[in-house]
């Protein structure tokens, strides 16, 4: 779908970064804690003041309204936050509410079968039943929140993905599930993926280009 290009992106602790991700390419970033990996992703998503420009294919970020940019270039933060009562309320496309949900979902089924089915497919792929959407957020464990946050993000249909330690708190089974889901989405949507991961095993297993932040510079990993 779209490639991502960082053009002289600079924040407090990082020298200007120029980096091109092709559509459908996955690039890993690692580095010691405090080196500014998360800040780099936050800068791309335009959450902190910084210098530089980011391009989604031929469209510069500065020409796009911030909400649109953040929908199209989706950031998954290391810690997931939830603002509403139930999980389903965080999915604007599939509002489920109480007893009406079955009926509403049925109606939705006929309208947008693909979107709804797709989300259910992602949920199943991460080991959830579809009724997890009716769960209260407070019931969720840290790992469950992290996995559901990925589904929440994918439901926005981002054209590029920024993942911050997407598998950090997960057991091997769920880590594999998340990797599979991200890889499937990347291939199907041809989405660029910038993945911050401290796990060398993961970087070796999935392959592709890898960078490391060293002394405030982004350098190719050797």
């Amino acid at each position, binding site marked *: 779908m779209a490639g991502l290009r960082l053009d002289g992106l600079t924040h407090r602790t990082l020298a200007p970064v120029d980096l091109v991700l092709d559509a459908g390419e996955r690039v890993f970033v690692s580095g010691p804690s405090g080196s500014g990996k998360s800040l780099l992703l936050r800068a791309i*998503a*335009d*959450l*902190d*003041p910084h210098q530089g420009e980011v391009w989604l294919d031929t469209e510069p970020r500065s020409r796009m*309204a*911030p*909400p*649109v940019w*953040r*929908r199209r270039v*989706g*950031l998954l*933060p290391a*810690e*997931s*936050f*939830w*603002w509403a009562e139930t999980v389903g309320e*965080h999915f*604007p496309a599939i509002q489920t509410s109480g007893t009406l949900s079955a009926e509403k979902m049925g109606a939705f089924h006929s309208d947008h079968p693909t979107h709804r089915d797709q989300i259910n497919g992602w949920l199943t792929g991460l080991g959830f039943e579809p009724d997890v959407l009716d769960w209260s957020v407070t019931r969720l464990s840290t790992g469950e929140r992290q996995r559901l946050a990925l589904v*929440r*993000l994918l439901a*926005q249909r981002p054209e590029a993905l920024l993942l911050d330690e997407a598998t950090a708190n997960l057991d091997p089974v769920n880590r594999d599930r998340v990797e599979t889901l991200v890889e499937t989405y990347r291939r199907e949507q041809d989405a660029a993926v910038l993945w911050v991961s401290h796990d060398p095993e993961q970087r070796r297993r999935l392959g592709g280009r890898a960078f490391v932040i060293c002394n405030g510079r982004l350098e190719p990993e050797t």
Partner: protein
Amino acid sequence: MDANAPASPSISLIELSPWDLSLASLLVLLLAVLSWRLRLGVERRVLIAAARSAVQLSLVGLVLKLLFAQTSLPLIGLMALVMLSVAGFEVMQRQTRRFGGPWGYGIGAVSMFLSSFSVTLLALTVVIGVEPWYQPQYLIPLLGMLLGNTMSGVAIALDNLTRHAWESRGRIEARLLAGQDWEQAIEHIRREALRSGLIPIINAMGTAGLVSLPGMMTGQILAGSPPMDAAKYQLLIMFLIAAGTGLGAMVAVWMGSRRLFDERQRLRLDRLTQAG
């Protein structure tokens, strides 16, 4: 007693002599002694606060006497400005996390100016119909009461807004990342802040007359007004205060929440500073 005064109020104001006041001040002294004996450690503050109130109120009495004698718009305007700037300072003092730079003072002062002054003006011209509208005997007490009450409403609402925004950073940013605009992302905090600013005046209206007689009505009754007239004025004041507080809190919360985000709709908590 003035022979020309209307006959209806049979009670008149008994003038307080300095001697009466010093008797009352003995009570404060007694309180300070008690605080010292019980080691509460507030005796100094009690005495200083009592002395301050004595000096400030005497001064205000003198100033008002002067103002009433002149009815000069520039002087009254100056007095109103002094009242506003002190109130703005007070709002800033009550913030746990205040906006840095001129905003820390400005948001509170501007919102109080917009609400208190406009409501006072409305009351003077449309409701009471004072002639001229800036007659200080009406303007100054009305403005004072409005400023005093909007001050607490604005201070509470702003404090709520900034404190909760600070605590909810993760959730606000999660909403931004979900593609919501800044107003949606701060919506729940904004609503909560406004509500907290309005609760005191709602409660005051709800219990008015049942639990305590509001200060202004008490004053009027002591000064010899018929109780029904005092009640009517008190009601007017309460309505004005409710409107002024609501308006002031809304302006303050709107300006404050706008200031929490920049032109790229990023949450800018770095614009808040912790009060020392």
